[in-house]
């Protein structure tokens, strides 16, 4: 993977007000810890050698979700041009965890950052055909202008942070 999509990814994220944290599998927990406002909920991460701290509830109740300040999930891939992350919602609850907390922390592997929407749809189409029931191309926090001015944080998260695993 060339560094170009990563640089584009970072500048796209900056443009939409999303912070990018670069880290490695080994450094993951220490990178995440200061970002983890509790209570926190999460879903298991599929990256080798990467786990969630104990403080993260991975089997949340409805009330846990409602109360969560941080929700940590993996993102299947990133889209550099747009600063988007693709959250695949399966039985572990990626969809509610990424949706209910005040802040969504999306963890993505550097090797999964794709340059553009064309490349993303090639992957999305393949995933859907393999049975991925739910994928959200999420770009920045939820937002609305329906109340007379732009507000970040409508029904979904007010803030999004992307953690990039540079060695994954």
């Amino acid at each position: 993977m060339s560094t170009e999509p990563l640089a584009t990814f970072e500048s796209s994220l900056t443009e939409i007000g999303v912070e990018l944290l670069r880290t490695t599998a080994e450094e993951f927990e220490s990178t995440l810890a200061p970002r983890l406002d509790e209570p926190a909920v999460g879903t298991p991460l599929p990256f080798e050698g990467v786990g969630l701290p104990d403080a993260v509830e991975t089997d949340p109740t409805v009330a846990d979700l409602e109360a969560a300040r941080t929700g940590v999930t993996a993102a299947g891939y990133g889209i550099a041009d747009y600063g988007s992350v693709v959250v695949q919602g399966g039985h572990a609850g990626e969809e509610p965890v990424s949706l209910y907390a005040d802040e969504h922390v999306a963890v993505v592997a550097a090797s999964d950052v794709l340059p553009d929407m064309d490349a993303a749809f090639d992957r999305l189409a393949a995933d859907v055909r393999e049975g991925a029931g739910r994928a959200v191309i999420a770009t920045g926090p939820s937002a609305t202008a329906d109340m007379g001015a732009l507000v970040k944080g409508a029904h979904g998260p007010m803030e999004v942070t992307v953690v990039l695993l540079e060695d994954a």
Partner: protein
Amino acid sequence: MSVDDRRRKAERIRHLLDTEGDSVHENTRVFNEGRYESVAKLDDYESLKDEARSIKEDAIERLPELLDHLTETVEANGGTVYVADDAADANRYVSEVVDGRNVVKSKSMTSEEIEVNDALEANGAEVWETDLAEFVLQIAEEAPSHIVAPAIHKSREEIADLFNEVFDPDEPLETAEELTRFAREYLGEKILDAEVGMTGANFVTADTGTLALVTSEGNARKCVQATDTHVAVAGVEKVVPSVEDLQPFVELIGRSGTGQDITSYLSLLTPPGDSPTFGGDGSDPLDDRDLGPGDDREFHLVLIDNGRMEMREDDDLRETLYCIRCSACANSCANFQHVGGHAFGGETYSGGIATGWEAGVHGQDSAAEFNDLCTGCSRCVNQCPVKIDIPWINTVVRDRINRGKDGDLDFLVEGLTPDEEPGGVDLRKRLFGNFDALARLGSAFAPLSNRVARTDVARSVMERTLGVDSRRELPEFERESLVEWFETRGSRVAPEEARRRVALYPDAYTNYVRTERGKAAVRVLEALDVHVDVPAAGESGRAPLSQGMVATARSNAEAVYEALSPAVAAGRDVVVIEPSDLAMFHREYERLLPEDEYTALKEDSYEVMEYVYGLLENGASVDVLADGNGERIAYHSHCQQRTLDLEPYTLAVLEDCGFDVATSEVECCGMAGSFGYKSEYYELSVDVGEALVDQFTTDDTADRTVVASGTSCLEQLDALLARRPTHPVRLLDGR
């Protein structure tokens, strides 16, 4: 339309201008500017639009086959598909599925079309709109005024007042942030209590049964996630063949609509899926219930026909089915920007494309309510991400409305008017549609005709019988037409010594009313060593077309082609002064003339300032033209001229001649041919024009000479400004 009908319509428009106009204007302006900025970042904007268009063309062509395929796919995935013939059929099915349970909904215009909430509530269900704008409207008991931002007509203050009155919170709500938090919490509880989640779908893929939902708030995601029964309602036209086909739409829809590169969420749902639910059953929402397994999710896809399959068979309405409901046509429309969708809309849909939707799903009467508000300015044409010719759809539906339900021919009236329309056509439409004949008579009897037309008696009769607003000045006809003047004068450049040879097209206004700009054009071209001829070609068809008189427009087009074809055949260029007539040659003639004739005329015709630019670029000397000498100009380009991307030529030539030019950003003057003369639309027309006046009365522009290319723009500016505006070619004329 009777005098009373016109008065009622004028009152309604005035009321909306006063109550909703400011909010709508502010918001649509942000969307419109956002779109320009956002699409400018795309390297391949035009090819994405072509791609999107061809996917829709193919999908609608193969629709029955795709619907079968989609049904098989969804059923194989474990969901059900119901194709509903009409609203009643859809509502019956959805009511059975819901069976009185609590429903949370995300925004869906199609669900507005079938009015499913009423049907569900009648069956005992509680239904909550969770999109914040739809929630506001549900509380206010109002209808959407915009297809993407349905509460665009309400200001923050009005929403705060509404919430404070209805919910009586401990602390009165004030800011957008407070209102949003309140609604989120309020609706959050409704979502926890709900058992059925209802959404629309922006696209549905036949190959995988995937719904694409384009959203920003996250409410659609919650409605589907929390409940175990998902009902999606979508028009049959939303089907595309495959997942890969979604890509151009995903890149275009947010940019085209609200001017965002992409919205916060683009959900691809391939139901049922196995994402856990909240298993809500109306018990205490704050209990410690675990997430329910997603294994028992139930999915119903309700596809609505409701007239769409007939639209598919209709050569003129078919394009409407390509619409992805992005709202670009509404946001780019001057009339919409000023009055909003409560005037510029039918039973459900609003904006330019609404004429097609309303005519197709609710019938012609619903379209007839607002169809006149499309002036054919064509500003929407380049904005539509699937390249729908929206003005044409408006024209065709207007033609059908003119002809009435039975299309009766009144042979007496038929014999007395020179047009090709049946007897039922409104008298005022015939007046404006036959402007050429009117102008010919007015010119023949000038100046007497002008004096008579100006009398109070005449104006009062015109207002009462024809609805021509007496606050407007009427055009004054010249006794000697441009063609007559030129016949007497003759050409001053010998053909064999000429740099180029042209036929100057004498549009009806230049020929009979504003002959000075025609004479100036002749002199300017001759100064640049061009041999000019002014053939007696009639009105282009623009006037009847704007009244929806398509047959008359076609016969005018044929006559114009016959008059100009000898010049075209002899290799001469056709030069056009009036942008709206050049736009006829370049756009509408494609639908009115045989292809070879259309192409020949289009390829050889130019706007006069564009032509001067070309001459200067090819060696002609600017020194023979008048020296601007730093004169300060405020220039307003015509709407159709902008659509054809011709503004830069006028600007370049004026600057080349030494003028100091400021340009207007307002894209439409609001006059739009006959529109501003019509008594029920006079105030809207002036409201639109005032935005232009504001730009031409700033510190920088107030002392500038006002220049405009279009006849209508000149009339509007003349009426609204103290300075008398002029056509740019007159500035170049040394005389």
